[in-house]
């Protein structure tokens, strides 16, 4: 590999000791920003779609709605698959969290939270619990009981406390830790058992709207996106913001890692989805069309990373060829905004959640 790095100025360190003024610090940050842009620019020797020129085009997809999950009384805001590839959890504006068997359409569990707008929900890796939260500024963990008659709400345990709404949550690789993102501008890592805050992540200058954990092989990092139009990559142990990307022109609603962990995609109110290469430290593709004018709210990759499913506020799901940058399919069916799309753990199906109160399974 040919690598390019730049040496930071020594002046900034010495300056602090001499009582650096605001003006000279601002000058320093401006020149560092310029240097970063230059360094990133030097690596821009080719476009992703050029490298992918010789790759076979994607064959026509025949994706159809195979299931419609009806049961929520209002907008479905979030969903997550269970590792068993058949169950999923969904949460709604009406305060309800439902666990479904997507094969049979059976509703296996239901919990009603005291707050409305349950914006985030996640299935625990063990399949034995779900996490959820929203306007209550909390993230709670609900153990799933085998006894259908048991009142799940009574066993609900508050784990995370933020000072504004909960926008996203994810268990780490075990049921023991929970990562959250919030309208209060921070992300945080919590111990589920004790409710203790293990690490907090500061750096966004507005609401954080989404987070995604790096695939376990790539180590302890996660990416977040927010209303400040930035996508930040964080070291989970130190709390350090290690990389930052600012190319979107509006709120970033969703971020998702590419399956290898070397890149991630984002969906934004600016009607584009973008693809960022972490080792080149820059955006390498923009998925957009003149005809797409509504914001993108959610993205997820197919198992190989070749397809990017993106849900939009115009009620459609566009399927993009990640490498060539072209759109390969549009999925119609929902009757309101798409809030979330997620590919099943075995890659056999796509689930979409919508403000039309339903979820759909596509395969």
């Amino acid at each position: 590999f040919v690598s390019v790095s730049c040496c930071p100025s020594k002046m900034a360190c010495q300056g602090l000791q001499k009582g650096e003024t605001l003006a000279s610090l601002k000058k320093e940050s401006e020149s560092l920003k310029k240097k970063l842009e230059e360094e990133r620019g030097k690596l821009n020797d080719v476009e992703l779609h050029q490298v992918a020129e010789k790759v076979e085009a994607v064959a026509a997809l025949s994706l159809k709605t195979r299931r419609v999950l009806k049961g929520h009384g209002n907008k479905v805001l979030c969903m997550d698959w269970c590792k068993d590839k058949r169950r999923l959890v969904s949460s709604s504006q009406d305060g309800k969290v439902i666990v479904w068997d997507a094969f049979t359409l059976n509703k296996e569990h239901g919990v009603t939270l005291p707050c409305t707008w349950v914006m985030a929900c996640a299935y625990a890796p063990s399949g034995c619990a779900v996490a959820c939260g929203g306007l209550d500024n909390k993230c709670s963990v609900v153990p799933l009981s085998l006894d259908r008659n048991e009142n799940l709400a009574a066993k609900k345990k508050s784990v995370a406390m933020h000072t504004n709404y909960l926008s996203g949550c994810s268990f780490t690789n075990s049921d023991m830790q929970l990562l959250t993102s919030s309208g209060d501008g921070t992300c945080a890592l919590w111990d589920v058992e004790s409710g203790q805050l293990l690490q907090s992540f500061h750096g966004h200058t507005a609401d954080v709207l989404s987070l995604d954990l790096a695939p376990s092989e790539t180590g302890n990092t996660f990416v977040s996106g927010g209303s400040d139009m930035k996508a930040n990559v964080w070291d989970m142990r130190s709390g350090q913001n290690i990389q930052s990307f600012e190319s979107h022109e509006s709120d970033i609603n969703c971020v998702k890692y590419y399956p290898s962990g070397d890149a991630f995609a984002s969906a934004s109110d600016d009607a584009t989805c973008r693809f960022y290469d972490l080792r080149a430290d820059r955006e390498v593709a923009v998925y957009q069309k003149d005809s797409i004018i509504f914001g993108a709210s959610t993205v997820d990759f197919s198992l190989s990373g070749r397809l990017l499913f993106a849900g939009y506020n115009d009620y459609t799901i566009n399927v993009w060829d990640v490498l060539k940058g072209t759109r390969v399919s549009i999925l119609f069916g929902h009757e309101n905004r798409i809030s979330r799309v997620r590919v099943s753990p075995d890659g056999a199906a796509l689930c979409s959640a919508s403000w039309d109160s339903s979820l759909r399974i596509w395969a």
Partner: protein
Amino acid sequence: MSGKMCSGSNSIIQAQKLVDQLQIEAGMERFKISLTAADLVQYCQEHRRSDPLLTGISASSNPFKDKKTCVLL
């Protein structure tokens, strides 16, 4: 924060934090897109056969697709 410090020190602390953050980012090792993109393409190609949504799988192996029904004679 000591009451003796002037109100300007808060913005200085913010500015210093920004400089520190940018220095961390500036110190990162980066690689050319021609190389990193080749790896992204390679990952897709290596995993394309095990991507059901990409290649399409038969109704008999996909639990969500309806199988043809049997008729008892």
